[in-house]
């Protein structure tokens, strides 16, 4: 099979027009999802059953079902309910962009909160005890000792999650959004040439992945100055 080079050169700029949308989806849902994750984390480690149980149930459901199904429920399913269509959220849920942001954020929140929890659990108990022995209050211990150490511990897993979120944005193409994948699928449907188009798209996503990983590698290095390199 001979590749149609002209088509590749033609379609890459077209697909890149969707890059903006892909990045918007990524950054917006990353910010919202991380905020949600922190709330869920605080609920889980609050030690209060009424807060911890809903957070656990939430995490369980969102990690236990495919994100594609979550997107479909939110986009096609929710508007079936009168309640939703009359709520103040309707202006957001009416738009496919809003639905994609909501779905991606809700999903990421569940995953990231577990990552943060792992980081918090990874903080050496001795350090918290040393802080108590010095007279720091529970809140001070969390802010000055647990959080900074937990963030560094969570960073590698968090960067993985950013990459999977970036990949999940491609699913927005299933709810009419013309992100990079949406544009690519349209080009394929018009040109009937999937290989050229999808392979070029794959390269674009790989570059994005690479950039995300490099950025996090840099951040991690900066945050690990205090860890001896030979260990």
């Amino acid at each position, binding site marked *: 099979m001979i590749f149609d080079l002209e088509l590749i050169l033609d379609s890459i700029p077209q697909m890149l027009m969707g890059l903006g949308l892909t990045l918007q989806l990524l950054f917006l849902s990353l910010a919202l999802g991380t905020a949600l994750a922190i709330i869920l984390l605080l609920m889980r480690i609050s030690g209060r059953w009424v807060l911890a149980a809903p957070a656990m149930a939430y995490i369980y459901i969102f990690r236990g079902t495919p994100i594609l199904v979550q997107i479909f429920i939110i986009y*096609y399913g929710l*508007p079936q309910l009168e309640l939703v269509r009359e709520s103040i959220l309707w202006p957001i849920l009416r738009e*496919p962009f809003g639905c994609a942001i909501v779905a991606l954020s809700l999903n990421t929140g569940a995953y990231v909160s577990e990552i943060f929890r792992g980081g918090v659990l990874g903080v050496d108990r001795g350090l918290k005890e040393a802080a108590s022995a010095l007279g720091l209050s529970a809140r001070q211990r969390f802010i000055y000792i647990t959080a900074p150490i937990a963030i560094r511990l969570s960073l590698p897993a968090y960067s993985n999650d950013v990459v999977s979120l970036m990949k999940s944005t491609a699913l927005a193409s299933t709810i*009419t959004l013309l992100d990079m994948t949406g544009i690519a699928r349209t080009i*394929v*449907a*018009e040109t*009937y040439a999937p290989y050229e188009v999808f392979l070029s798209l794959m390269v674009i996503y790989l570059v994005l992945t690479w950039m995300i990983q490099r950025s996090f590698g840099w951040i991690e290095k900066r945050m690990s100055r205090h860890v001896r390199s030979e260990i």
Partner: protein
Amino acid sequence: EKLRVGMECTYAPFNFKNENGDLMGYDVDVARGVAGLIGADLEFVCQKWDGMIPALLANKFDLVVASMSITDKRLEKMDFSDTYRISVGRLVGKKSAGLKLFDSTDKPIPANFADLKVGVERASTYADWFKNELPKANVVLYDTNESLYLDLVNGRTDMIMTNPMKAHLRFLSKEDGAGFEFVSPQIDERKYFGIGVGIGLRKGNDELKARLNKAIKTLTDNGYLESYALKYFPFAIH
């Protein structure tokens, strides 16, 4: 001889599954009728619309009997039999909206399409029509026909363009579609909608194509096509 037939399986009443899981519809009947005449066994393959032609070219199946219109663009990549039904499109919108979209000569008035969202299926002839005739229109692309109706009802789009027979049967005549009506005349410009719907096949299968054409002629002449249509519509559609 065994022939694999690609179709969406979600495009009622042309090709769809009922609650018992039986494949049925006008396309299915045509395919079965043709197979009977040329003496072939059929195997149906369900395939999403936007991959229909790539899948045919990749030899996932041998025939497309999926309400696919014969267009020049498609003919560049594949071959078609003679038509077994007509191909037209029509816009559906809200009854109360009072839309005036076409002038007295049935030409669209581009200005009146501004600010309106139109849903169509990705890679359909309708999408082509909009792209060329109304390039400024706000077109939203869907993966399945069914989601067109869902989002029209949800208010995410102001109108949709689709096959009028299907729209009538699956939507306008149902409870959901009560508040909606056709808001355009029939659009059937040959340039986009071609000469009608045919059976698609890979190029270079002229012998098969000849047999298909002969079978379709027989079905037409002997009134079979009409009887298939009357199962779903109150009129013939070929």
